[in-house]
């Protein structure tokens, strides 16, 4: 290819990184709400829990499409290698998302089968989350590559480590979901969300600890990056901040603050996300291809950038507006205020 006049890779890395992070936060909390839905105690609480995400879930899930297509657009080689490598987790995720997505509508319309779609909603949310965690674990462990293709088997992605990350993500999304419910509900239901939130928080802490111990043991490149001098000094704020934030999150789950548990959970996700990013930089197909090697042609990246720089702020504006319309506590008797 011709020599690029401008290097678009950093800006696309930022856009894709933000897009994936938005997806993890937004669909993260509504998948988490779906997981917690399985623990609701009566019909009224089920309705309130479902109502708290009904108007926004498909906007949240749209970020998944943007993440997938964003990878296809900006780093197509990574897309072509990683997607077949995680064939079954993606397959499980897509089917689970289908079941849980239609459950929103079917549950209310299909009175005789309400129980079935209730289970579909909860288990679908959990399976989708677990599958995404498997993808994350497989990504950290890297893929077998030959030429421009994935060369391993379709079951390679299932390892003890990836199952650990799958379970970790269940706790993580459930914590986000509990934070969202504390924000959106009141009274008995809010107390219930706090209680579950504390359990999820315990799971998250354990998961962060285990993954942090195992990652450098499994990937020597990462161990070297973490522990060599002076990196260990520069990187130390991340574990320290995580610890401080964890203390704050625990306190806010135990006092009366309404927004803090959700904010704290977002903060913990951000720190973990940064940690993974720093560990793998600049790889997009870990240990095989860098962001620059996997990038689309500059012409492609430039053409899409023109539109994206204009459209993404517009999207954020009207998505923000739709959240604003449904602000405040969710109420059972009249739907919304």
């Amino acid at each position, binding site marked *: 290819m011709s020599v690029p006049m401008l290097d678009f890779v950093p800006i696309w890395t930022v856009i894709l990184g933000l897009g994936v992070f938005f997806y993890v936060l937004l669909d993260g909390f509504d998948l988490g709400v779906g997981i917690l839905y399985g623990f609701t105690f009566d019909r009224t609480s089920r309705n309130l829990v479902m109502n708290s995400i009904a108007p926004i879930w498909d906007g949240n899930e*749209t970020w998944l499409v943007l993440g997938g297509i964003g990878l296809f657009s900006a780093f197509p080689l990574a897309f072509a290698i990683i997607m077949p490598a995680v064939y079954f987790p993606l397959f499980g995720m897509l089917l689970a998302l289908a079941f849980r997505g239609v459950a929103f509508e079917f549950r209310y319309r299909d009175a005789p089968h309400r129980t079935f779609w209730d289970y579909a909603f909860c288990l679908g949310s959990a399976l989708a989350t677990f599958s995404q965690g498997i993808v994350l674990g497989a990504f950290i462990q890297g893929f077998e590559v030959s030429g421009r293709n994935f060369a391993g088997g379709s079951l390679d992605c299932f390892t003890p480590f990836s199952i650990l990350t799958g379970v970790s993500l269940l706790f993580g999304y459930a914590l986000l979901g509990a934070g969202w419910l504390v924000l959106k509900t009141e009274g008995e239901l809010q107390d219930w969300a706090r209680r579950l939130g504390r359990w999820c928080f315990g799971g998250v802490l354990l998961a962060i600890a285990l993954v942090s111990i195992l990652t450098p043991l499994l990937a020597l490149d990462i161990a070297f990056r973490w522990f060599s001098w002076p990196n260990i000094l520069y990187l130390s704020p991340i574990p320290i901040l995580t610890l401080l934030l964890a203390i704050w999150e625990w306190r806010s789950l135990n006092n009366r603050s309404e927004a803090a548990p959700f904010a704290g959970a977002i903060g913990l996700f951000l720190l973990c996300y940064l940690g993974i990013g720093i560990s793998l930089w600049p790889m997009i197909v870990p240990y095989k291809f860098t962001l620059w090697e996997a990038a689309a042609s500059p012409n492609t990246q430039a053409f899409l950038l023109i539109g994206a720089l204009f459209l993404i702020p517009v999207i954020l504006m009207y998505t923000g507006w739709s959240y604003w319309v449904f602000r405040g506590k969710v109420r059972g008797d009249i739907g919304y205020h």
Partner: protein
Amino acid sequence: MELDPLFLSRLQFAWVVAWHILLPAFTIGLASYIAVLEALSFTTGRQVYFRLSTFWIRIFAISFGMGVVSGIVMPFQFGTNWSRFSDATANVLSPLLAYEGLTAFFLEAAFLGVLLFGRRLVPPWAHLVAALMVAGGTLFSAFWILSTNSWMQTPAGYEIIDGRFFPQDWLKIIFNPSFLYRLAHTVVAFYVTTGFVVIGVGAWYLLRDRFVEEGRSMLSMTLWLLTILVPLQIFLGDQHGLNSFQYQPAKIAAVEGRWDTVSAAPLTLFAIPDAKTESNRYAVEIPYLGSLILTHDVHGNVRGLKEWPADERPPVAIPFFAFRIMVGIGLLMLALVVASWWVRASRRLYSSRWFLRCCEFSMPLGFIAVIAGWTTTEVGRQPWTVYGLMRTADSVSPSLTGNDVLISLVGYGIVYLVIFPVGVALMARLVRSGPLAPGPEPDPVEGGRPGLPVSALRAAEPEALP
């Protein structure tokens, strides 16, 4: 027998896309219809438009939800099953798909929440804007995805380096030679499909003497629209066919069941094409008409399949029959529209039982025609994913085994066979229960979505009331 991942991946793609296309075929037209109803309700203040809009929004909610979840599956298919195609074409095609996401999906998703749940939370004009945005989003989506598909059929504006496609001219890529024909033919097909569902529902009410005002409005308004769109669609189909004749002559040869190149080709009405003997059996033909339609000259030259080596020919029987089903349905639709002029002129549009019965039974016609047309164009362009340049066989992910794909195919098979019938049954139930009984004043809560989860639940279960 060894399981073939290529064949199974093709089957899987055909399965997930065939179910998925039924939903945009309905929601694109329905979103526009709802936007028109909302606009009429806003400007005239007539209650019937308000009730109709509320009624169709409930049905839209179900079909749109199914469209979203079956649609998310599609881009991932590219990566999981067709990774070599993705690697080769990403530089050209990925921005088109990304622009679909950026211009359409977010617009639809954000404003859908307001359209469904927000009637009493936002002023009426903002609710109308939400309806327009959702309708616009569905059309933007059609624009980009059909541009992508068209580029695969008639690639343009690219260069090939080391077996991969690179962009040279974005306008030529987006507005590739078959795009505008395909866009017009497909969008009108979707509007017509929705139109026949709406007149079917209207006729169903009129035959049972229920919701008469709503039924009349649906029937009359939509038949005027179909009066324009059905003849227009036949014209657009002819134009699209001529475009394919120019750029994909092998596809047309298969559609026509034409094996030998001849001038003054007949039009084959019916035959059993036989690929082994390279000939048609039981052929019923009209002399000269084939050349006349395709070249607008009775002695025009029409190329036959034998001009291509056997491994560059599409399968013949599938596009041949699928095309005839599509055209047959088009003619049936035209007959119904012509009949509607006659019953309308004799003032029996709302009372002629045989006509209303015909409307009722024509409800699924559009869907069948859409699937048949899609099959014609997609099977007809085989054995290529990028026409003439990249083979389907070279597009599949190399790491997949037959067993991998068999498992996922069975999974998609089961899940879609649960979700789609339940969804259709729920929509049918909404039709049976009908638009809400008219109230003195639109109750904002009930108006927004009578299915507002909690209120609907409480209405259904008296014991849940305080």
